[in-house]
């Protein structure tokens, strides 16, 4: 990208060509007012406040690209008059309920009204009756809405649900005199505002994946969280910057805490908020925050003693990847000292896949991150139910398609109506066990200068399990027109596949011989950190200690084990997230009992007061207290630090590319995944997300099985059977049922062999 020089308000600035004036100004600490502008989304052009004068001409700075040598003035008397009139218009008929409004002063309408020195009202129009709408987690009060359309924009450009749209307001027309007397832009803005309100795209209620991002971007109190309504003023809440603990994206969040009530001074998390310009949360992150461990009984020395004895006598520690780097490091130290086995099946599979892949490409880490995906214009996703496995990866795909006019191929056996509804995504419902064929196809189609043995091999592959639609080649050619940045997202189906080794090699080859950069979505919150820190074992022996897993002696953050430790919102630590970035977690709620570090202090030769004393020994050797957790004005991610990829030994592809054993699943299959809003037992514990799991089936599959919501069915595979109730989920399609892992009452893993698909019989009981 070439550099350009321009001046804004007399300040000389060097910027990248193609940037908008507003972004350049903000990155250089120059303030231009704007209500409807959203970073990373397309300009809405609803508020018109960002009006500036560029080379003597008035332009909207959110939309206008800067040019070399441009002279920009952010205010002129005329612009000032326009902005004041715009704010006056926004204030027309706005209810005077600031005293109880949930925005409680964090209101852009208030801010800009004061900033533009609005002290009287010149305009008026007859108000219309607009009742409050209840949309599940969200409440919409149209009376407070200023129709900046930020919610519509974020839902379309970032989330991909497109569940909101503008609907008619049914208001009287504006007084004709205003057209001549009012400032031009203010009148045009009002004319548009007077015709629209926000409504749902389909039906009377909001049909979406409940990410709540619309409430986060709302500049006034029109879209709010129903649970939080009237509970607290924003200024009473302490914002604790931290990292979401539910999936590998590790979004930056703020836990907002306050005393519980008048008679109880214990801190409580009231809500989670995010910097909506720079991060986007999914519903699990936004609503699944109160998973803290309340079962601590203080520093119980005898319990600690029992735990230490149990660890000393154990042969194996079983754990999962909802764990900080520091805890993983302590587990590894315990392994070194006591010769324990560390068992974490999910991370083990990821580690094996990762190792094979990284030796093929000769790099210690994969090449893409979510920022790269957002900058792509052609993305392929293989083996991940993106919407639920890694919501932010889905947001990134959608964002890339919308902003870069991109296209995407989404290969997955489970149909996803949300992905399908995104224009530009071609969903291909391939069969289970077809991942090898898909990757081979990608290599064949996009590989350049392939070695002879590989191209010869690819010639013989039959792609029948991929289920390509008719005229696929022509469609793909159309999709690939003018595309230059390619991303390949690989999901957890591949890590657990019986052909994982081949698949990893194929992914490596795609990286080497094509333009694709690869993103291997870590299958759980801190899987990437765990595999970089721990040497995992395939299986264990002796007595088993469970760390957040059930075992002979259970150390648990759920409060149901033999020894209680803090949950992830009660401790400091770091994650290594999907962007290969070490991101910090902070303490939102106190935990007054012992933690893993206290057990380690009794056993290891070294004693550390805090768990985070280990942070400095990890990755780039930076102390915990030196890790920042913020974004710059220009949206630059300043959280923690990025772990750089290093060159490692390159091994030849062993390449025993066997054909996938065909048609392994003859009948119907089930898939191991969670529904929208759920990731694990922690999300299921949060008060807003408490729900019972079941067998999730698409509406059409329910018809085929002739079952309705709540019917009990027996799901039987060759490994056993489970009685569960049917839950009809309109966020999946096709005839593949989903069994969840978040509900501790459903031991779904025992039905599976490791791979996420298995043949199953579903019978009504």
């Amino acid at each position, binding site marked *: 990208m070439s550099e350009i020089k321009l001046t804004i308000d007399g300040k000389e600035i060097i910027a990248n060509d193609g940037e908008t004036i507003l972004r350049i100004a903000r990155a250089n600490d120059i303030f231009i007012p704007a209500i409807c502008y959203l970073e990373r989304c397309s300009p809405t052009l609803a508020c018109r406040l960002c009006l500036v004068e560029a080379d003597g001409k008035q332009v909207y700075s959110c939309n206008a690209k800067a040019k070399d040598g441009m002279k920009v003035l952010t205010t002129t008397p005329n612009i000032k008059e326009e902005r004041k009139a715009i704010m006056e218009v926004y204030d027309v008929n706005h209810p005077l309920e*600031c*005293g*109880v409004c949930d925005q*409680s002063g964090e209101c852009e309408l208030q801010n800009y009204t004061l900033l533009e020195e609005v*002290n*009287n*009202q*010149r*305009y*008026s*129009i*007859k108000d219309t009756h607009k009742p*409050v709408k209840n949309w599940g987690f969200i409440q919409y009060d149209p009376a407070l809405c200023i129709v900046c359309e930020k919610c519509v924009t974020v839902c379309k450009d970032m989330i991909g649900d497109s569940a909101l749209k503008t609907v008619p307001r049914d208001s009287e027309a504006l*007084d004709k005199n205003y057209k001549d007397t009012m400032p031009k832009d203010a009148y045009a803005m009002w004319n548009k505002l007077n015709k629209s309100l926000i409504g749902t795209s389909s039906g009377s209620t909001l049909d979406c994946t409940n990410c709540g991002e619309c409430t986060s971007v709302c500049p006034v109190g029109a879209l709010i969280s129903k649970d939080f*309504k*009237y*509970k*607290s*003023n924003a*200024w*009473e809440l302490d914002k604790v910057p931290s990292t979401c603990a539910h999936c590998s994206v590790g979004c930056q969040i703020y836990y907002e805490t306050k*005393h519980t*009530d*008048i*008679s*109880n001074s214990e801190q409580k998390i009231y809500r989670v908020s995010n910097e909506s310009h720079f991060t986007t949360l999914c519903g699990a992150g936004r609503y699944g925050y109160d998973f803290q461990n309340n079962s601590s009984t203080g520093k119980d020395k005898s319990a600690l003693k029992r735990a230490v004895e149990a660890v000393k006598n154990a042969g194996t520690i079983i754990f999962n990847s909802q764990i900080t780097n520091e805890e993983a490091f302590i587990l590894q130290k315990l392994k070194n000292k006591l010769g324990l086995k560390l068992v974490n099946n999910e991370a083990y599979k990821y580690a094996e896949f990762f190792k094979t892949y990284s030796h093929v490409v000769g790099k210690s880490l994969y090449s893409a991150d979510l920022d790269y995906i957002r900058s792509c214009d052609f993305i392929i996703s293989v083996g991940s139910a993106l919407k639920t496995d890694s919501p932010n990866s889905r947001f990134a795909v959608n964002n890339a398609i919308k902003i870069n006019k991109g296209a995407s191929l989404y290969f997955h056996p489970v149909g996803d109506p949300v992905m399908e509804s995104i224009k530009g995504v071609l969903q291909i419902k391939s069969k289970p066990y077809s991942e090898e064929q898909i990757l081979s196809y990608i290599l064949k189609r996009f590989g350049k200068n392939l070695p002879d043995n590989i191209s010869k091999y690819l010639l013989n592959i039959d792609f029948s399990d991929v289920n390509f639609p008719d005229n696929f080649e022509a469609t793909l050619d159309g999709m690939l027109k003018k595309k230059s940045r390619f991303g390949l997202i690989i999901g957890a189906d591949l890590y657990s596949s019986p052909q994982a080794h081949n698949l990893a090699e194929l992914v490596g080859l795609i990286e080497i011989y094509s333009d694709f950069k690869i993103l291997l979505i870590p299958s759980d919150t801190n899987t990437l950190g765990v595999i970089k820190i721990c040497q995992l074992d395939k299986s264990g022996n002796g007595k088993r200690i469970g760390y957040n897993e059930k075992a002979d002696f259970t150390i648990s953050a759920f409060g149901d084990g033999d020894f209680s430790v803090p949950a992830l919102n009660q401790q400091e630590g770091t994650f290594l997230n999907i962007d290969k970035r070490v991101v910090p977690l902070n303490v939102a709620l106190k935990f007054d009992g012992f933690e893993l570090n206290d057990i380690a202090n009794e056993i290891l030769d070294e004693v550390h007061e805090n768990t985070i004393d280990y942070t400095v020994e990890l990755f780039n050797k930076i102390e915990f207290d030196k890790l920042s957790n913020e974004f710059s004005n220009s949206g630059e991610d300043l959280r923690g630090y990025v772990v750089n990829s290093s060159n490692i030994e390159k091994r030849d592809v062993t390449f025993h590319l066997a054909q996938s054993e065909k048609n392994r699943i003859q009948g119907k299959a089930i898939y191991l995944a969670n529904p929208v809003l759920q990731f694990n037992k922690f999300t299921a514990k949060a008060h807003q997300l408490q729900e019972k799991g079941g067998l999730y089936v698409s509406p059409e599959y329910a018809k085929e099985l002739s079952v309705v919501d709540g019917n009990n069915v027996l799901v039987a595979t060759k490994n056993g059977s489970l009685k569960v109730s049917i839950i009809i989920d309109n966020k999946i399609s096709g005839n593949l049922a989903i069994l969840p892992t978040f509900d501790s009452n459903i031991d779904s893993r025992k039905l599976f062999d490791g791979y996420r698909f298995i043949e199953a019989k579903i019978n009504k009981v």
Partner: protein
Amino acid sequence: MSLDAFKNRNIGSQNYVPVNIENYPTSGWDKFKQVVKRGVGKELFVGLWVVLREMLKFKIHTVQYPSEVLPIGPRYRAVHKLLRLLESGNERCIGCGLCEKICVADCIRMDTRVDENSRKEVVEYSINLGRCIFCGYCAEVCPELAIVHGSRYENVSEQRAHFVLKDDMLTPIDFLKQQKEFSGFGALSPNADQLVKKTPLAY
């Protein structure tokens, strides 16, 4: 924890800290010195003279408290009250939290929630009088004239820290007619109507 703990005014056997007072003279010589200092010094006669003079005038200034109570100025800041709307009897407090925010002693807390009519309801409101410095900011900032200073300055209690809960401050509904409008700091000025800029209405 329920609020009963706060409502229990029975102090029982609490540990009071004795105030450190200088010791009384013990030896005879010290007592003699104190008597001489007080007896021969001028102040004895000053007091006697004032009493004699006032007695001769036959004018008695003493207010016969408690049977006689002096009126107190509207700006006096005594123990708080929560007022009701005179017409409907509804609580004036809307739970905006400004008093909680402005309180310099950080002694106000309130719990709010959505009520059945989806309005904001103040479930509980407390002022810790042990910390309150009676600065009057809460009454001044209140946009609804809901929290005001009353005229009750007789604070007889075992502990200053006794909280004032919502029930203690709120005008009882059957005493609504006796409720007086507050005219201290934060009340509307007499010419408030003239200061209002009218918003045009399209009706």
